[in-house]
């Protein structure tokens, strides 16, 4: 039932979204959210290594694409059964999906998957490290930023917030989640405990008592989260609807994010990454549906599709957004690969997402249209996409804090 509270909140947010909102209003809007009530959830995925957007969301309608990539282009969509599996899957007559992403076509058709193209960070760097850092801090070109955009995007907490509001799957806490609001990293839900209970108590006291502020805070956050996750650890988890996550770290990360969300422990923000996109050499195998890029895309697509199936109705609360630090050169390099480029594509998936459409303005691939004469130019700032999700989906109106110095343009994704 759409309650009056929600109505109030949405319209009030629409009002405050444009400018600074008085804090009392923000508070009043969130105060009604009883603890344990379902919250909106944002899942961010980072494709580390600079994914080749042009071979993922293929601009088959632009002939320049085929001129620039004589040996590693994805062929135009075709009905010919012999060639179909190696050709782009048409989306809108101009763009097509890489055939290894067939698992996502259905979601696009059902309008739950949106794509933004020619999107990315405006900073010119072609350094993996710097570009990832900028995208995760949410402040391109500014190295002094201490915290990450996901940490700043968490709506102000009401009452005592859950210790697992923000969770990252992996061995380290990503830059995007670092900051003042507690955020935790875990390799697996199951390993997130001290296996010797007595030792656990001892450690908890030792970390509470230490004079080192850094370790004291980390210890406190850790043990609060441990307490919260204990109940989940005892239960076996079977994905719903027969969802089959691919083997490997990424699929397992999404599986555990699904498990955490469905356990209602208060997750509002989750992060997972998938590496290996830096394809300087032999990006495609003997056939376009084979090789390093295709294998990675299959894993990626199947994991997203499994997450969707597993989450079921809960996807009405969830948006998944995926990004990579920059795109790759429009022209293939000398080794059937691509070098570091500029603009890229982003995927947005969710129950409330206005999908089935490729958003953004296509800048073209003619020499004079390319960024610095070599890369896909940027027509949408990645903060437009993230900003809209933070304000409209999570309902956090303080975009000025989340993306300081930038005013996101709303694309209408949700």
């Amino acid at each position: 039932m759409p309650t009056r509270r929600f109505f109030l909140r949405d319209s009030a947010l629409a009002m405050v979204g444009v400018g600074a909102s008085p804090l009392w209003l923000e508070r009043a809007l969130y105060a009604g959210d009883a603890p344990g009530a379902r919250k909106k959830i944002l899942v961010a995925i980072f494709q580390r290594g600079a994914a080749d957007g042009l071979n993922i969301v293929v601009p088959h309608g632009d002939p320049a694409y085929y001129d620039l990539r004589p040996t590693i282009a994805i062929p135009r969509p075709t009905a010919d059964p012999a060639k179909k599996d190696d050709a782009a899957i048409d989306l809108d007559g101009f763009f097509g999906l890489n055939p290894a992403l067939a698992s996502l076509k259905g979601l696009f058709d059902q309008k739950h998957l949106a794509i933004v193209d020619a999107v990315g960070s405006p900073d010119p760097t072609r350094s993996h490290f710097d570009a990832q850092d900028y995208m995760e801090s949410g402040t391109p070109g500014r190295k002094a930023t201490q915290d990450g955009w996901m940490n700043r995007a968490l709506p102000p907490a009401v009452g005592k917030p859950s210790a697992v509001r923000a969770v990252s799957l992996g061995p380290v806490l990503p830059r995007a989640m670092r900051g003042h609001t507690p955020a935790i990293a875990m390799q697996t839900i199951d390993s997130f405990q001290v296996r010797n209970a007595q030792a656990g108590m001892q450690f908890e006291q030792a970390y509470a008592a230490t004079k080192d502020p850094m370790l004291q805070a980390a210890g406190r956050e850790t043990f609060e989260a441990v307490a919260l996750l204990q109940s989940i650890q005892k239960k076996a988890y079977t994905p719903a609807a027969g969802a089959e996550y691919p083997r490997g770290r990424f699929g397992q990360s999404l599986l555990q994010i699904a498990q955490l969300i469905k356990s209602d422990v208060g997750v509002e923000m989750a992060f997972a990454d998938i590496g290996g996109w830096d394809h300087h050499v032999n990006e495609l195998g003997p056939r376009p549906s084979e090789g390093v890029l295709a294998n990675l895309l299959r894993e990626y697509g199947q994991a997203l599709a499994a997450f969707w199936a597993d989450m079921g109705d809960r996807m009405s609360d969830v948006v998944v957004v995926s990004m990579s630090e920059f795109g790759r050169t429009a022209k293939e390099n000398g080794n059937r690969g691509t070098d570091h480029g500029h603009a890229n594509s982003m995927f947005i998936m969710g129950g409330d997402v206005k999908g089935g459409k490729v958003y953004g303005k296509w800048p073209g691939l003619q020499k004079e249209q390319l960024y610095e004469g070599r890369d896909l130019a940027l027509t949408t700032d990645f903060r437009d996409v993230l900003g809209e999700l933070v304000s409209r989906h999570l309902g956090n109106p303080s975009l000025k804090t989340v993306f300081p110095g930038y005013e996101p343009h709303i694309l209408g994704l949700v």
Partner: protein
Amino acid sequence: MRQRAAAILSCTLALVAGSGASAYAKKKAIAQNKLFQKQLAADQKILQALNRLTFGPRPGDAQAVKALGLKKWIDRQLHPESIPENPILEEKLKTLETLRMSGPELVSNYPTPQMVRQMVNGQLPFPTDPDRKRMLTKLMEKYEERQKAGAGAGADAAKPSPMPPARGLADLLDGKTLRTFRQGNPQQRLEAFQALPREKQEEVLEAMPGQIRQALLTVAPAELRRRFEMAAGPQQMVARDLVEGKLLRAVYSDRQLDEVLTDFWYNHFNVYLDKGADRYLVTPYEREAIRPHVLGKFKDLLTATAKSPAMLFYLDNWQSVGPDAPRAGRGIPKAAKKGTRGLNENYGRELLELHTLGVDGGYTQADVTEAARCFTGWTILQPQRGGEFVFNARVHDNGEKTFLGVKIPAGGGITDGEKVLDIVAHHPSTARFISTKLAQRFVADEPPATLVDRMAAAFIKTDGDLRAVMKVMLESKEFFSQGSYRAKLKSPLEVVASAVRAVNGDVTYAFPLANQVTQLGQPLYRKAEPTGYSNHSKEWLNSGGLLARMNFAVQLADNKVPGVKVDAAKAARPEDPVAGIAIGSPEFQKR
């Protein structure tokens, strides 16, 4: 009332977000600078040196340094060749024979299944050792059997497999031995196995289920263990030896600074072990390109990495071909692999960004491309067979280049790349970048600028003499100050090695320890990105990692980490009921 409180709050927030933040940061920086001036007490100085120049103090180390004199001890560590190596370490490294092999030797003695097949077909020579040849031939037979069985099952599941089923343990052993294998503890199994005649052992080894084999590994003497591991796949031995060697050296070497620096510089010039041919190239890379130069001239270190097959393969330069090179474009014969036709910028970029100038070191995209042109033709002879650096003039771009404003005339051949290395090795940005990184590893996460300035000046004055740069740092007041004392969070490798050292653990099998380092978040030789692991404490500060450290501490003290023997009494404090609390404590996580 509520509104007023909110107004005050929002004012405060604005202050923090705006100019207030920089004022606060400034104040904090001033306070921090004061701490870098405050000197440590004599005993603290010794601990500081031990914590930073070694993988953690062992019982008695502090007294030994005191007896020798701190200055003299540091000086010795700066001259590792003057320290006799620990005989215990040399003994333990003996069985890790791959650490001493060349690339081609590694490939032929520890081949992949594909290579074994080529050997059997006569396309590749067998290793000279007859035992090794016999073993590989057997492995091949086994491999083929499995392949055939697999293909048969896939093609027609209804038909019985043409291969006889592999012989099980029951066919090979008498009742008593069989019972021991099925029900005995690892020690009993080991004894039963050792009692078998050698020919029988091989058959039993092949028939043994993987789980039983794994359990035996931890109790078997080193040589027998190797035979077990070889049966599982010879190509894995190279990676195993590498990580075991690293752990053993970290724990046992008496040339501790040499080990710490080898770790630092390998990470600086990171190569990912699991990228294709690098499985065989990393061993000689660390041994010959990194280790000999860690206290030498930076230029030599840089050149050794630039010409190493491991780096050339990892950053794709071996395939980079000049667009105007004689062999580029249409001229390429069909026999040449498709994919060797043009420029690849990967190495050129990382050389400038990560190895020398740093990302803000003052270069442009054009410099990256020009550097890449200079390095065309720097390639590898037979990368899949262990490799060797070679300059191939026929794929070199011989045109004129301009790199960082310097004209490199046409026709320079191999000297083009050497010229680039010379320019960046002596660049002031490199002096600063390297000094900052060293200071971040050895002094503090945000090292004081005054110290970095002096280190960079020494770098330039001494033509990049890394020992001289280290000396400036290790003799500085900042190094021995309260600002740097216990200011760094240990990396997972440091946690594991320092814990074993602190309790004087006896490492009989280092592989499980290396697995612990992976569990803690730092798979050794397996950082896929060229950045290597960050030297900043933040890299390792997170809840999952913290819990993994606590679990490791308890396991270690409880003698539950296979391959390490610990005197539990030494790992406990009188006030703690559970051994290992000290190792998992917040204090122990810092150095």
